[in-house]
């Protein structure tokens, strides 16, 4: 982790309150999908932690919902503006563990299942890309509240994945929650290895269904690098910090 100066190269509105910002600069330290960055914004005391949706050696993409004043401000910044960014933060998803799980499981679980809920989907996209590079085609389930929240469908298709989309109100894709198509999948792939990011009730429901996997958590934090103890949680292996020991926790260590 260190402070980098990244420059905004584009900002795109994906939905009324969802924006995609591409930042350019040294991103060579990012070591795994699921890591996040912490952005300093003028006029705000705390930085804004945002997950990485995509990255290369010299650029990264963030996709965020304008839920508060900070993210709203972020969405109005001009292209060319430089930002102070602490990065990369967090452990990220372990592709090695996914590969290991697949090699150990029966042939019926040959594909990992990736599930993203709402604005929890961006790091899942980054993970899917990483898996495709290793020759693993995951099954992707993306859940949203409504059609006006749907993001990344075309991006997934562009890398060769057709995501199963659900909306709570049925305005797009299958009506219902991500757990419904996931439960159907489990009838065929009952030992499916799952990687997921999204709201906590969704993570909890998936945790009850899945045999094994990696779960990405969110918490209010001050520093993002393990100093403030603002985002602590209890696990089977003692107290952990979502920011540095997470945000990804293993299925078996999670205590609800």
């Amino acid at each position, binding site marked *: 982790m260190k402070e980098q100066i990244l420059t905004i190269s584009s900002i795109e509105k994906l939905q009324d309150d969802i924006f995609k910002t591409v930042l350019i600069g040294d991103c060579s330290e990012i070591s795994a999908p699921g890591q996040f960055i912490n952005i300093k914004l003028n006029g705000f*005391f705390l930085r804004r932690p945002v997950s990485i949706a995509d990255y290369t050696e010299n650029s990264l993409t963030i996709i965020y919902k304008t839920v508060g004043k900070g993210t709203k401000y972020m969405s109005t910044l001009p292209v060319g503006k430089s930002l102070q960014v602490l990065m990369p933060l967090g452990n990220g998803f372990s592709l090695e563990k996914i590969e290991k799980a697949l090699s150990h499981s029966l042939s019926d679980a040959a594909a990992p299942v990736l599930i993203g809920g709402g604005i929890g989907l961006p790091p899942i996209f980054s993970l899917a890309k990483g898996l495709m590079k290793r020759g693993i085609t995951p099954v992707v389930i993306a859940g949203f509240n409504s059609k006006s929240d749907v993001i990344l469908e075309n991006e997934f298709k562009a890398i060769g994945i057709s995501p199963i989309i659900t909306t709570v109100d049925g305005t797009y894709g299958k009506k219902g929650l991500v757990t419904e198509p996931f439960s159907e999948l489990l009838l065929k792939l009952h030992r499916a290895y799952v990687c997921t990011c999204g709201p906590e009730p969704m993570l909890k429901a998936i945790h009850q269904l899945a045999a094994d996997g990696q779960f990405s958590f969110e*918490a*209010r934090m*001050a520093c993002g690098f393990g*100093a*403030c*103890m*603002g985002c602590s949680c209890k696990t089977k292996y003692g107290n952990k910090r979502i920011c540095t020991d997470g945000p990804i926790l293993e299925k078996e260590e999670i205590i609800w």
Partner: protein
Amino acid sequence: MVNLSAMEKESQTMSFQPSYANQNSSPDKRIFDTRVNLCGLTLDNPVIPASGTFGYGQEFAKLYDINILGSISFKGTTPNERFGNPLPRIAECPQGMLNSVGLQNPGVEVVTARELPELAKIYSKPVIANISGFSIEDYVTCAKAMDKENQVGIIEVNISCPNVHNGGMAFGTSAREAAEVTEAVMSVTSKPVFMKLSPNVTDVAGIAKACEDAGAAGISLINTLLGMRIDINRRKPVLANKMGGFSGPAIFPVALRMVYQVSQAVDIPIIGMGGVSSADDVIEMMMAGATAVQIGAANLVNPYICKEIIEELPEKMKALGIQNINEIIGVIE
């Protein structure tokens, strides 16, 4: 009023030797002496990360050589392990933040057996042991354990915690109880004891004086100001604990005022803190009466802040015509 100990006066008379922290700086910076003396302990500079904002140094040691720091006040220690308060524990405010971490720490045995040896690998100078408790016995337990640690140069006693034997009133809100904790801790350690005062009181100078009279070697202040935020969409407090400690640049004028008031009331050294975020703030705190200065919330938004302040201090001193930083301690009458 003179608020320098005899030891500090002695250090003031020393010649302008180069500060250890600045040996690699350009030659014209070398004549600016940033060393200060806290009860016989010479710090290379007055900059100390505040307890609870720097862990045990490990996260920061990955970013820079933390040996440049004057000292480190490590995470507050209680006799037993504490998970702390439920989440959310953090709320943002204009120019600051609230925290209700709730003294999460692994307990004094783990701190001395595991964290301090690890800290010794990355930091070779004496550290400040910040201890907390919910009864006099808690403080005594922690002080006894810290007294045995060679690494510990100063014991800093956080008395902003509620006394479970007195209806949960914080020790630091009563001069009598603050003095009682001071005496109890003093009786089990030969190390200098700094009482860390709460700002949530009507007469901070009176409490500081009571600690001095009870034998405290120094005073640290201020702890966080009690605050609260409400999420107006959810109609609920932002913090799960409802209230939390307010820190950050917003509290600096309050902290400075209290450091000044205490420096007028006592003759023991003061470690000033509360919203300090720049070399200018450090100098201002020292002019108000602080011998050393702690940096708190600023570490969380800029992990390089202590390094930046230490590097900037000689330039600031040059600009202000200060050759020895001890010259400015308590210059405001």
